């Protein structure tokens, strides 16, 4: 498909896509390395000697810690990598949930029109009126906090943008000649929607999903920061920031390292989304 290749070319030339993509790949690589490295915990006396080593500092036994250590003498870089697994997994899975839900609801609303459209639009408007964090707190209090709940809760609160975009795209395309042709050939509404309309609406939805991944990671870290998301000892960037808060003055790196990690990866996803949006706009102009 030549349109797809044009899009890829434009993306490859965009420095924002390059920077964003590299950061995200780096984070995934860190997470993968962390998955290989699970040693036994150190004995207690070693922990005391290793507490709060500053970045680029070495412990008495000569081990270098690039990002320093925390109050339990754990290497922050290693923990950051383990945390990346949790944070990335939550972000990507939540965004995927939102994408599926948004495409489904937006597609049905846009194609069916009439009463289903009005109902789904009303639902979307209502969901947009509910501030996300208080609502997430509500879900956390009603059910046990944990990884699965965080993914589900973030997925269920992030689909509205995707739904609106997909609805608009499907509505605009549903009476175009190629759709008429598919209908005239006897395609069922379900087939017209999934085979002909949704593939065309997917690109803007992906932009929203890229932004949504960053947002979900930010929210996960926020919930964990409040002690309501991923529970220690499983490290996530959010609960690492919360743990570093007590030593903010004496050892600021403990909180700053995961804080910077969240900010950089969220920024990477937003740059990628910007680049994708620009590339799609360029594609539309040249069409």
């Amino acid at each position, binding site marked *: 498909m030549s349109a797809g290749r044009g899009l890829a070319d434009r993306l490859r030339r965009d420095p924002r896509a390059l920077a964003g993509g590299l950061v995200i790949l780096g984070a995934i690589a860190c997470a993968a390395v962390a998955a290989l490295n699970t040693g036994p915990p150190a004995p207690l006396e070693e922990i005391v000697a290793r507490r709060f080593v500053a970045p680029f500092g070495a412990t008495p036994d000569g081990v270098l810690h690039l990002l320093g250590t925390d109050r339990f003498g754990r290497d922050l870089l290693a923990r950051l990598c383990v945390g990346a697994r949790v944070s990335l997994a939550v972000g990507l899975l939540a965004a995927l949930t939102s994408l599926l839900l948004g495409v489904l609801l937006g597609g049905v609303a846009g194609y069916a029109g009439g009463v289903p459209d009005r109902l789904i639009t009303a639902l979307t408007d*209502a969901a947009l009126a509910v501030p996300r964090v208080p609502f997430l707190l509500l879900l956390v209090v009603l059910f046990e906090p944990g990884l699965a709940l965080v993914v589900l809760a973030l997925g269920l609160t992030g689909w509205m943008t995707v739904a609106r975009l997909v609805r608009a795209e499907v509505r605009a395309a549903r009476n175009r000649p190629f759709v008429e042709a598919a209908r005239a050939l006897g395609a069922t509404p379900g087939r017209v929607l999934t085979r002909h309309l949704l593939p065309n609406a997917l690109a803007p939805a992906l932009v929203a999903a890229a932004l949504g991944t960053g947002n979900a990671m930010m929210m996960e870290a926020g919930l964990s920061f409040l002690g309501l998301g991923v529970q220690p000892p499983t490290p996530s960037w959010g609960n690492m*920031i919360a743990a570093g808060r007590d030593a903010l003055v004496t050892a600021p790196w403990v909180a700053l390292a995961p*804080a910077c990690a969240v*900010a950089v990866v969220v*920024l990477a996803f*937003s740059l990628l989304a910007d680049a994708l949006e620009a590339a799609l706009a360029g594609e539309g102009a040249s069409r």
Partner: protein
Amino acid sequence: MPRFLARRILGSLPLVLLVLTATFAALHFAPGDPVRLYLGPDADAAAVNAARHALGLDRPLAVQYLEWLLRFVRGDWGTSLAQHRAVTAVLSDALAPTLLLTGTGLLLTYLLGVTVGTLQAARRGTALDTALTVATTVLAAVPAYVLALGLVLVFTFGSTRWGWPSALRLPAIGAEGVGADFLDPVQRLGDRVRHLVLPALTLSVIGAAGLARFARASVAGALRQPFVAAARARGLAERRVLLRHAARNALLPLVTLLGLQLPALFSGAVFVEAIFAWPGMGRVAVQAVLARDYPVVMAVTAVFALLVIAGNLLADVLAAWSDPRVEESA
């Protein structure tokens, strides 16, 4: 205008009802028996049944729903499980600090965002424009709690260590100082303002970064319009062209962004209040979650949602008031 207002208020009623119904549903289908939570695990079956009957939990769902709705409208929002007092009492203490914080935050958001965006549009393509674009892109990606910790590190701990003037040494806990009751009114006001600076700044910087990007695009678009060329042709000073002609027309649409800003603002307020121990609804909600006090969490969510709906209504009215075409097309 009155007819437009009436129509918009009626139009948002279904949304209010939907939010309230969702609240009831969450309350009703929540796992865990509220009666057992209230009486404790040691209560015997007779006491539980008596309490259930007294609370009306043994009646049909539709009846319970209508009664709950009636009570909600009358201001009876149930009892906090953790504090054993009315939910409305718990919330009424917290509403004013939250409105102060989010109100100040919203004002600063628009002030900062519009100023930066207009400046960028006026200096389009310069190094300043590029620097501000980078800054706003980065700031928009920083989570509120990260920014809050950074500000505390610099303006609470750093400023003391580095011996900065006392105006830059800002408190990071609570809405007023320990001895605030003993200060005279002027000093007390100063104390309150100092406590407000860091939380309000945290809340506004991130939203302002997003808003600045809209404002830049909007003002830059207006600067290309014929009426701007006409104003320039009449020999008006560039400053006047920018502020009186371009910005004024470009910034009115930003009012409608209020509807998108508000949910994010209230979400941010939860984090900001938790970090700065600000005695508002967000902190109440977080504490209630930790105590599994779900009537309070539910009420906070409903109140925030109602505030967003009210804010959207206000934005629509402002838009119609500033641009009569909106009213006609509605």
